[in-house]
């Protein structure tokens, strides 16, 4: 029951972000939308790892329990990687957006869309 909320959140965030990638026109807004998509995938993995009535995957907490119940540690480790990768992607996209603005004077993709050497 608990995880239903979370899965619904994940799917609606993904749909929201992909919809805004289709309909939004500002380059920086697209970066925000992709960040939301990444967060939704992160939340998906953390939700997968969650087990009710268990403890964080830290070794010193384990002996306090009667039986060893931890949430799954490996998705959390992977999501740490994904957060960092997402930061790198965001930084690169923002840099490219800023240089695009400097070269073209606009951030609107409809004004940028003309192909120069098109027949």
């Amino acid at each position, binding site marked *: 029951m*608990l995880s239903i909320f979370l899965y619904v959140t994940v799917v609606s965030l993904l749909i929201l972000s992909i919809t805004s990638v289709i309909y939004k026109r500002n380059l920086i807004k697209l970066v925000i939308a992709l960040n939301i998509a990444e967060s939704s995938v*992160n939340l998906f993995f953390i939700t997968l790892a969650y087990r009710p009535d268990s403890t964080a995957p830290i070794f010193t907490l384990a002996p306090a329990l009667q039986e060893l119940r931890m*949430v799954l540690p490996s998705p959390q480790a992977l999501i*740490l990687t994904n957060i*960092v990768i997402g930061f790198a992607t965001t930084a690169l996209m923002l840099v490219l957006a800023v240089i695009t603005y400097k070269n073209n004077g606009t*951030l609107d993709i409809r004004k940028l869309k003309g192909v120069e050497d098109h027949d």
Partner: protein
Amino acid sequence: MTFSVVLSILCAVILITAVLSILFRDLMAAVVSYAVFGLVMTVIYFMLDAPDVAIAEASIGAALTVCIFVIAIRMTRRREE
């Protein structure tokens, strides 16, 4: 019981902030909304027993990302056209 109530409220907050950060025409407001999104996400990670991910999300996802967004918006223009 309180756990799941709090979690569902936080999920609703996440959805609202995400929608707001898409809808705001003012990019600075959108980024602030995205910062709130990241912070609430941090709380959710912490509630789901992922403290290390929560720390990383708070420092990178909420703080650093918002910083570079603000820098990028200051270097370009603030309003969506």
